[in-house]
């Protein structure tokens, strides 16, 4: 069911904001260049990026990017005023960010890179 719902979001995105799908490709290309990363379907629909079996973040087909940080980083990012609390788990370290254009895609890459570096450092500490 979640996958079916996400595919409807993709259909809507395809006709309403097709450039977002190009931005997804752009992000995917970038993230999959980083050492040890992979992608798969997210359990609630969308594409999930992993590092060493752990989730970096996922993008739903309407352009909603969700990433988990620790609360300290989340607070710093919230201060930048571009991200919001996670659309469901508001009180957690998860954040949400809507990708609506190419600039947003660039920021999304920066957010994913930050999460990736966190996981990378944790693994190599």
């Amino acid at each position, binding site marked *: 069911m979640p996958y*079916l719902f996400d*595919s*409807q979001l*993709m*259909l809507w995105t*395809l006709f309403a904001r097709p450039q977002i*799908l190009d931005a997804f*490709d752009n992000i995917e290309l970038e993230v999959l260049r980083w050492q040890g990363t992979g992608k798969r*379907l997210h359990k609630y629909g969308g594409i999930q990026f992993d590092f060493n079996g752990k989730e970096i973040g996922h993008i739903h087909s309407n352009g909603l990017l969700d990433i988990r940080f620790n609360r300290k980083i989340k607070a710093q990012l919230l201060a930048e005023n571009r991200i919001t609390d996670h659309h469901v788990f508001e009180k957690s370290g998860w954040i949400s960010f809507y990708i609506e254009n190419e600039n947003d895609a660039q920021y999304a890459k920066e957010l994913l890179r930050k999460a990736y570096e966190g996981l990378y450092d944790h693994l190599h500490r």
Partner: protein
Amino acid sequence: MNTRTIQILKGFIVSNLFSVGLIGVSKYLFSRGGQPIFIFSEFVIIPILMGMICAWFWKDLNLPGRKKALYACLDIFLVLAFSYIFLGEGVICLVIVSPLIFGFLMLGVFVGFKLFKRNDENLNVSIIAILVFVFVNDSLSKHNYQNRVSDTITINAPPAKVWKNVVAFEKIKQENKYWLFRIGMPSPMQTTVTGYYKGAGRKCIFSNGYTFDEKIITYDEARDLTFDIVGQPRDPEIMNHIDILRGQFLLKDNGNGTTTLTGNSWYKLYVFPTWYYDIWAQSITRNVHLRVMEHIKQLSEK
């Protein structure tokens, strides 16, 4: 025509031929000469396999996400066009089915790209074999699903006044609010009866002229009107998809000059999976109820 275009077209052609072939074979092998049933696999497994076939032909083309989604849409458009032309499916049915098959076809495309990238023949064959097994198993399984939809409204009139408008009513003139009625799905227009007694014939006439023939089986004045549907129109939107079995209006005197009117409909679905199609069946039945019951309310409150 360059190689790239040929590969894209092969994806469309082979996936569509595969789906037509598999549906044809399954109908030939597994239908038991009775009521045709559209099983879960036809809307889930076949689109997944179609998506995987497309992925097989498109795997080396380095297609961007936008094109993958667009081509998946085109593939579905072809399936729907074939269903319209060769299977005689109605347009509204195709509108209803398209989100389901789009979702599973896209899933097939994604899984296919992942699988074929790994180039693991054993894994590929295993997954396809599992999907075919599920298809055959589903084709051989029994399918039976019945449900009831119930709606209630309060009418500011006593039961005796409401009753005469429940048994039969003049043409509904209000504009349709429900989006499926607005895009062409027939909506209820008028009801006629041959008499006011148990066993009398009743006709529910829809906006396109199609008629449901009904027989009153309970005539408990100002309380209960129950009727069996004895003849359904051969409308491609209904045929082989749903049977409306029984309808009922229950009137409850609230003791303050108002009446609670409850409309019940029993139906049987011939399309699966029901977790998807029953959402639509309930929504459509509910909107048929509400259109009729709002009309009864308006007539009774005059």
